[in-house]
């Protein structure tokens, strides 16, 4: 199958439950909005190919469950990500405070040079705002990331956010190791540090070779 894109970027959306990660993603991938999205269980993904400075870039965007409890599952998918969007809800103080926890998570589990971006979602709900734009801005400066306020509902800044992140990744990539990135980059397999997983993979492999031998005879 001929490849229809120049680069493949894997992006990840993280943030507290209910901040609108799935809505942001749906707005970007399907250009639709639904007030009653159902909660994401574990992990999900969407694809969209964009045109950036003459290059076709396929964005494979992973959406994660927000609940604290699922972090052990979702962090397994951090490794393959080239860009991470940290989403909070401007009407929810706690989700904003938790951004620093999510950043810590990234530092622990994602690759060192991952592009990060902080997103303050639901900026259409000005009347219920509790986190000012300035605070969001301040936090992003603190962590050296880009910052945007978005509204999935009104389709405000959604495209811009993804394009900006993609452009940053592309820039970094082209400055860095040339064009070797693109394919590969493992999606989270089983927990990296799980010995059973390692055994399991070996098991699979052994089984595979066994099969081959069998056929060869």
């Amino acid at each position, binding site marked *: *199958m001929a490849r229809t894109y120049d680069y493949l970027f894997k992006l990840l959306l993280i943030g507290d*439950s*209910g901040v609108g990660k799935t809505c942001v993603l749906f707005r970007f991938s399907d250009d639709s909005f*639904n007030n*009653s*999205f*159902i*909660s*994401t*269980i*574990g*992990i*999900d*993904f969407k*694809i969209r190919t964009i045109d950036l400075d003459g290059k076709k870039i396929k964005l*494979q965007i992973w959406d994660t*469950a*927000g*609940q*604290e*409890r*699922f972090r*052990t*599952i979702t962090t*397994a998918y951090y490794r393959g990500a080239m860009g991470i969007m940290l989403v909070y809800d401007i009407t929810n103080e706690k989700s904003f405070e938790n951004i620093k926890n999510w950043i810590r998570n990234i530092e622990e589990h994602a690759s060192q040079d991952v592009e990060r971006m902080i997103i303050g979602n639901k900026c259409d709900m000005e009347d219920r705002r509790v986190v000012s734009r300035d605070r969001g801005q301040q936090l992003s400066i603190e962590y050296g990331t880009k910052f945007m306020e978005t509204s999935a509902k009104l389709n405000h800044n959604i495209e811009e956010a993804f394009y900006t992140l993609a452009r940053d990744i592309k820039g970094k990539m082209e400055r860095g190791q040339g064009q070797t990135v693109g394919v590969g980059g*493992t*999606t*989270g*397999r*089983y*927990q990296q540090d*799980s010995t*059973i*997983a390692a055994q*399991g993979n070996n*098991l*699979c492999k052994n*089984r595979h070779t066994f099969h081959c031998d069998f056929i060869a005879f």
Partner: protein
Amino acid sequence: MDGRNLDRTASLADGVSSDRSDETRPFKRGHMRRSSYESAQIQLDFSRRSDARARRAASLHASLNKPGLSESSSAQQMSLSDRMDASSCEGSSTGTTDSGIGGDSNSSKRSSLDRRFEASSLQEWESCEHQQQPSCSKKPPATPKKSLSLRFAKGIFSRKDGRWRVFGDRKTDSPGLVHTTGLILEERPSNLPQKSEEEAAKHRLLYEQLLEQAKKKEVKVEKERRKALEDKKKAEEAAGVAAKIWIEEILPHWGTLSDSKKCRDLWWKGIPGKVRGKVWSLAIGNSLNISEELHNICCQRANKEARYNREASMAQIHLDVSRTFPALGIFQNGGPYHDLLHKLLGAYACYRPDVGYVQSMSFIASILLLQMEPFPAFVAFANLLNQPLQQSFFRLKQPAMTEYFIAFDLFFQQELPALHARFDEIDLRPDIYLIEWIYTMFAKSLSLDVTCRVWDVFFRDGEEFIFKTALGKNSRDTIKSNRYSALG
């Protein structure tokens, strides 16, 4: 009167008054006819065909002639068409019993989308008509008023310079029969040289063959429809019989009969909705010995502790309850099951603070609540979550979860090697899809009916069936869509 109904319910395609076009524009030869019919009878029926459809077409025509009115502008047009209704019903009272349009009452049930589609195809024909007009002169044998007002829908076939045209239309006398094919045998337009006898005979023969085929097709469709109806009836009867067996024979002797072949066979075919809750309850059992008293205590505690400690389970529950099956609208704030679901999840979080609330529990609890009363639902929920597979996942025992993933992977490789190889190639690991499927027990990815059906067998066969379903879903999903190829 059919026409009346139709126009009352008619929406977008029905435009402004039809009077003008009805009366002032005589039918001309070559005028595009808007008609729907079943057979060659059409030519005989020509003059009898009418009216509601006619009016619709004519009104559309009128609206086309007034560029200011788009067909989708709503309120004003609706009132206009209502008014028109009254007047044109009087005018059309002569021929409305014609079977040729017998489907109108039927068509009134059609969605506005269909109408819009018809309207647009109508528009195409209209423009066609205008082009053709100059070359047409001979009048057909129909009365001007009625013939003009015939409506045709999507043309599936047309041979402008030939002798016949085939129009497809949706339609008519038997309810449920959606499409039929109408055929007209027409003379060659007078401005063209007449056909030779031979040619005419040949075309007539072709025409008859076409008719024959169309008739056969209709008979076939009708037969299928009847069969579907019969099957449905049979299924309903079977479900009735099954329900009776469940209620009268199996449930009273659950202890001895639940493992019998008869029961298991019946079980495999699905549990009738009537007894589903009961059977599930019995199948899950209550090894935790949860009493009604305990349930009440948990409910009360949940009530008090609006904010429950473990990562604010209560807040999360509050958020998720409204996000459970939003399409059903019964778990949302103000819906009849909102409080029940909230209570059940809260009570469980109090009952098992070590587990608390984990997202996706809302799906499982909601399905149980749909089948049984609050207390049995709580018992079933707690006991279901106490099973090994659920324990591993809801308590996030990573190694155990991994074992399940690996077991499934091997199972997958063994059963569907080619698909497994392809999944490997694009680095699609089972955890990506299994997590959601296992946590929600398919409640999120399958329809409610199918989910219940899967759960039926899950309660019979245990966790193994979850993985079998996953396998079935993999092969089906992959065949149906190439969603996962996006990963490559």
